[in-house]
């Protein structure tokens, strides 16, 4: 029995669930990419060489991850196995991790 949903709780719209999960992963990807490019300068320079500035490439990479994963999740059954409440918790958790992770990184490193 799924303990995260009430017995008669309707599921999220399929696109809402797919792109919700994609947003959570894109937010975590954004955080990890910020860490990696901060410690690995060749990646920073490579990203800058693609668009003229590492930050522009970073933003576009986030967009691609969000859109691509959203479409993939929409066309597969991945989100059908995640309860709506768990999806909300995943997204909120991803944002908290990103905020704390980014701020702590630039305080400590």
């Amino acid at each position, binding site marked *: 029995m799924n303990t995260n*949903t*009430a017995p008669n*709780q*309707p*599921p*999220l*719209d399929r*696109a*809402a669930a*797919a*792109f*919700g999960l*994609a*947003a959570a992963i*894109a*937010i975590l990807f*954004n*955080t990890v990419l*910020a860490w990696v490019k*901060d410690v690995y300068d060749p990646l920073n320079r490579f990203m800058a060489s693609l668009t*003229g*500035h590492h*930050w*522009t490439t*970073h*933003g576009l990479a*986030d*967009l691609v991850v*969000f859109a691509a994963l*959203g479409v993939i999740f929409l066309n597969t059954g991945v989100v059908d196995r995640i309860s*709506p*409440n768990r*999806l*909300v918790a995943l*997204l*909120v958790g991803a*944002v908290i991790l*990103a*905020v704390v992770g*980014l*701020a702590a990184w*630039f*305080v400590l490193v």
Partner: protein
Amino acid sequence: MSDVILLAHPAFGVFGILAAVWVFVEALNAREQNAARTRLAAWVVTVCIVTAWILGGYWYVHYYAPDKAIILKGPWPWAHTLFMETKEHLFFVPLMLALYLPFAVRDTLFSNKAARNMVLAVAALIVLSGLAVEGAGAVISHGVKVATVQTGVKGVE
């Protein structure tokens, strides 16, 4: 032109935050009658935050370098090393959430509690992360000011 872009960037950020508050209130009072208005508000959030991203990004890439040099020579170097470094990456959080919001409001919020909770959570996160980004922008701006004021005082002496 640089100043117009610099001022328009946080202005659109504030408009996006206010629109997210609008979405939050509409979702709290979700009924069949306000479904279209909730979707409109969600699109306003998306348009405002994306505009803030494009304007802020253009200014950051083309005009920020001299300000960065001034900040790093001033008494608040952490306005760049901590606040700008965090802000330039944290900005993508409300951006991703704002891009997601139109998908989240597709559901019938008045009859689907989980969908309503998702919209409430996303709108609240846009407001909170947006305010954090706006606050960081204020600190960065003040970092330039205290550096130039210090230089000016030294110049007078």
